[in-house]
């Protein structure tokens, strides 16, 4: 095999959306047997470029060559046919079907039957060959995120992919899962696959990539070989962010100190069921002091959602108690809890945090419409609502054109600012925020994070539930690790930054196991 044989060559690919050039004459070459990182900020054009290679979009200009053969994809199916497989960040799997059924879905033979047995057999072979462990008869909805990702990878291999695109594959993985994935990626590269790896995490790129192409504002800035090391990281960061002044990658957050030891928010031995009546929080305890930010980290689905909902009064607490200062909040109902001073910014901004079809005024008073300040008898005083909103909009720099516009038209960042304004505006004693910066661009992310720090400095106790480890470490005074509904570990943030591997172990339940055995 020729070392420099090219698997993929994109030549001057341009893709315009009305008003925006997402990809501006980008050229990219990916060698056989390499892991090629595609690096860039949100909005730099990585995903658009890969969507073109995966056949989802057609480029406005430019050409695609696979093994030096010009290729035109009219659909994802064409790309798969040509040997390009993409693993999306949001998996394309049918939750109510088995692994084998999901694979069979993309096959064309046999025409009428399913031939599931044959699929299962071949899956087992592929699984052994590439070191990607999956159980062909398992139902997707019973698999962890890491397992589902393996299914996605093996699915593309099953369909004959030679070029594999992984879109931010570590976003929802634990550190051990991530390193398992890297091992598999390198193994595939050694076997002659070409792997394109979309990321904006410099550590990962140093760990797994052979070369990296950096995109910035729709253009390819540079392609570099990757050797690892701090100096290289800084160089990549500089290329990625470029001359932009509003963001700097390292961006040290003003380390804030909390001096008070007054416990404001406390959960004592709470147990909570999920929607299927299975216990998801098991005898969990935590506390947050006045002015403190406590980060709860963990892999998605270990009880984060239920924890936030239980504290906020949206989910029944089966046993245990929750206190805000001296007040017992346990199962008090969300209205009373928010009245007593516990605010909550949920993770799902559009599906829970706002009524997306209603306008901004209506969304702004969602939690306060019943207060006497906004009411005259049974009537809502819309004038006052408008006034409050106008103040919040300017104070929180929410960029909107029309206050009567439905909330769904706001960008993620602006909607999050509006929700923060609403929740912080109630002057809460404690605040729960869940994945507050997910899906936001860097500017909005910094804004939101700074607001949270400001709020903590003014005395609010903040419980930050997040899947973003960097964010947890940057904002939190303490970091708690949540695994299967228990807190499996706790460290002060400064120590935590030096003990990532320890946190990784906790995230996979190391201590929980030790406990069970002991």
């Amino acid at each position, binding site marked *: 095999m020729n070392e420099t044989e090219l698997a993929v060559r994109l030549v001057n690919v341009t893709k315009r959306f009305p008003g925006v050039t997402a990809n501006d004459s980008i050229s990219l070459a990916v060698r056989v047997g390499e892991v090629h990182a595609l690096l860039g900020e949100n909005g730099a054009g990585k995903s658009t470029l890969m969507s073109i290679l995966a056949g989802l979009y057609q480029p406005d200009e430019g050409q695609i060559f696979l093994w030096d053969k010009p290729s035109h994809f009219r659909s994802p199916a064409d790309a798969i046919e040509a040997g390009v497989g993409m693993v999306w960040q*949001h998996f394309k799997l049918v939750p109510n079907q088995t692994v084998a059924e999901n694979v069979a879905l993309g096959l064309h033979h046999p025409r009428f039957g399913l031939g599931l047995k044959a699929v299962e057999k071949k899956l087992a072979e592929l699984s052994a060959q590439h070191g990607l462990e999956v159980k062909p008869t398992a139902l997707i909805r019973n698999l962890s995120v890491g397992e589902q990702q393996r299914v996605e990878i093996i699915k593309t291999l099953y369909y004959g992919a030679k070029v594999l695109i992984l879109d931010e594959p570590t976003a929802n993985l634990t550190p051990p899962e991530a390193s398992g994935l890297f091992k598999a990626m390198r193994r595939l590269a050694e076997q002659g696959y070409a792997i394109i790896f979309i990321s904006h995490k410099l550590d990962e790129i140093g760990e797994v990539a052979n070369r990296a192409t950096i995109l910035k504002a729709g253009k390819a800035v540079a392609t570099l070989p990757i050797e690892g090391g701090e100096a290289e990281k800084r160089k990549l960061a500089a290329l990625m962010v470029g001359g932009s002044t509003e963001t700097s990658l390292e961006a040290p957050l003003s380390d804030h100190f909390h001096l008070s030891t007054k416990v404001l928010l406390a959960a004592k031995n709470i147990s909570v069921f999920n929607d299927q009546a299975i216990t998801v929080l098991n005898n969990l305890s935590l506390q947050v002091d006045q002015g403190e930010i406590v980060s709860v980290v963990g892999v998605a689905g270990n009880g984060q959602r239920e924890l936030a909902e239980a504290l906020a009064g949206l989910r029944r607490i089966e046993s245990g108690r929750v206190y805000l200062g001296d007040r017992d909040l346990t199962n008090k109902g969300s209205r009373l809890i928010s009245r007593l001073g516990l605010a909550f910014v949920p993770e799902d901004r559009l599906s829970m945090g706002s009524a997306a079809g209603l306008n901004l005024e209506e969304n702004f008073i969602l939690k306060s419409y019943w207060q006497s300040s906004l009411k005259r008898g049974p009537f809502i005083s819309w004038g006052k609502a408008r006034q409050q909103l106008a103040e919040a909009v300017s104070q929180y720099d929410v960029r909107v054109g029309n206050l009567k516009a439905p909330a769904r038209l706001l960008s993620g960042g602006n909607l999050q600012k509006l929700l923060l304004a609403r929740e912080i505006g109630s002057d809460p004693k404690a605040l729960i925020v869940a994945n507050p910066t997910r899906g936001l661009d860097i500017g909005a992310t910094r804004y939101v994070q700074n607001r949270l720090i400001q709020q903590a400095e003014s005395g609010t106790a903040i419980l930050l539930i997040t899947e973003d480890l960097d964010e947890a470490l940057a904002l939190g005074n303490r970091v708690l690790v949540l695994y299967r509904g228990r807190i499996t570990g706790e460290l002060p943030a400064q120590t935590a930054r030096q003990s990532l591997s320890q946190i990784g172990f906790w995230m996979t339940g190391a201590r929980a196991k030790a406990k069970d055995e002991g």
Partner: protein
Amino acid sequence: MSLFGIDLVLLLATTVSAGTPVMLATLGAIFNERSGVLNLGLEGLMLVGALAGFAATNSSGSVWVGVLAALLAGAALALIHAFFTVTLQVNQVVSGLALTLFGTGLTAYLGRGFIGIRTPDTFNPVVIPLLSDIPLFGPILFKQDLLVYLSIIIAPLLYLYIYKTRPGLQLRAVGESPATADSMGISVAGIRYFYVLIGGALAGLGGAYLTLASNPAWLENITAGRGWIAVALVIFAGWNPLRAILGAYLFGGMEALQFSLQAAGNDLPLFLHDIPSFFLKMLPYIMTLAALVLVEWRFKVSKKQSNAPAALGLPYIRQEKS
């Protein structure tokens, strides 16, 4: 065998034939809803099928032409629903209601000339040799007409189709996760159109059973809510064709019981005497509601979630990026 003057064999045989039209419509709706499209237009579809089948049999003299006409008419009306829900992506509830209103009005308008006519040809019982001699089961199941046999055969076939074949796998994927199906190169719109049409055709056939077999005549609103009952039975059956048989015969049983009780009159024990026929006629509706309540109550107690297709009722809009 009889109890208080009710011939039990006759009761059960009537149950089977009374359940057949509802079963056909329910099976059609299961197909339809498995693809993710809710169809509240069943009542209208059944009516259109009933009238089309009746009219075509009348002019051609053959029930088979009637069957064909009913299938086509059901599919044609369902095409409107498919266009509105899949292409225009309007609210599926309202589109279904409009379909029912439209079908009801259309058949009342066009069917006026057919009131009081008898068809030249009807579905008559076909006695299956040997099988019909089985005690009890023979007379109940094997002295029925061809459409009954057809419906009994169709249900398990549909079950196999949905769970064991490639088209069935695709159908389920479209109803559960259209984005996934789309990424696999499966045409979500194409599949939805196809099964909405199939569902409409089967509902039309169910309607035709009423005018060609049950009571070979056309009356305005002859379905009397059977389409709505089929909508309920889909939920009762948990979108499973085999359980649709049970649901449909449960409904058929209520209808049969209503006839039997009326016929038995004074042979009944005293507490059943003089039940006004109006109350007996309520039975199928009340039992349908009760069955639904039971299903939901069981979900509530067991805390399990309904097994409705995850994308049911939601228009599919392709997200440009993942």
